[in-house]
């Protein structure tokens, strides 16, 4: 209950060849008897994308930076919504089939408004800031890397390596 912030954050990269993502692992990690609300977001590979039928997605990832981004996303979300909250972020990599889980984010707080907002902020950061790339595999045998969002370094003024 009075853990330091870094102990209230769990970040994982899971190779689908080793194990699927586990929502119960997320729920167990963020659960705390001081918290009444847990919000869990689950991203699941779906059949249609860009109007075409998909058989699966290959996720490529730069693991060490992805983990660093997950941790900073969790810290920012906790800071913004409840300094006592707990946050869990896990993303799969490798060749996922339709129905496989690609990402699981959980955020728990004493109150549900913080749980919802914290979870939402964390998944948005994962989608727009983490070094992860999606290659869609279509039923006709073709593949396509998603267009994606360009990464932008945080404001230089905030970093030790800035101007």
């Amino acid at each position: 209950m009075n853990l330091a912030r870094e102990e209230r954050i769990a970040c994982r990269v899971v190779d689908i060849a080793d194990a699927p993502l586990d929502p119960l692992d997320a729920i167990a990690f963020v659960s705390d008897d001081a918290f009444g609300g847990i919000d869990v977001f689950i991203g699941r590979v779906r059949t249609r994308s860009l109007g075409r039928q998909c058989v699966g997605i290959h996720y490529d990832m730069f693991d060490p930076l992805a983990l660093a981004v997950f941790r900073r996303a969790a810290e920012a979300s906790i800071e913004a919504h409840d300094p006592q909250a707990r946050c869990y972020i896990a993303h799969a990599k490798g060749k996922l089939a339709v129905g496989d889980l690609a990402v699981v984010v959980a955020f728990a707080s004493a109150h549900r408004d913080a749980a919802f907002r914290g979870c939402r902020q964390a998944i948005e950061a994962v989608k727009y800031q983490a070094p992860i790339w999606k290659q869609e595999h279509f039923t006709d045998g073709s593949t396509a890397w998603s267009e994606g969002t360009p990464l932008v370094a945080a404001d230089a003024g905030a970093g030790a390596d800035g101007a």
Partner: protein
Amino acid sequence: MNITLQLFGRFREFADGPELRLELPGVTTAAEFRAAFEAWARTHWPDAATALLQASAIATETTLLHARSPLPADGRLALLPPVSGG
């Protein structure tokens, strides 16, 4: 400087392996690396790759580099095209 550049996403299709090793003399910042690498790419990669390069970031294992960021002493960099996780 000796650079080892890890490739991700669509960039993997432009190379034979997951990383490139390059000797780029006089390069000490991320902006200098970018200019030198773009010159290299124009002679080794198709136009699609050099276009993608414009939208890509340069990073180490822990952070994205700003234009004026010094390169890490070990010369290990990653080239990150636009992302699509989640």
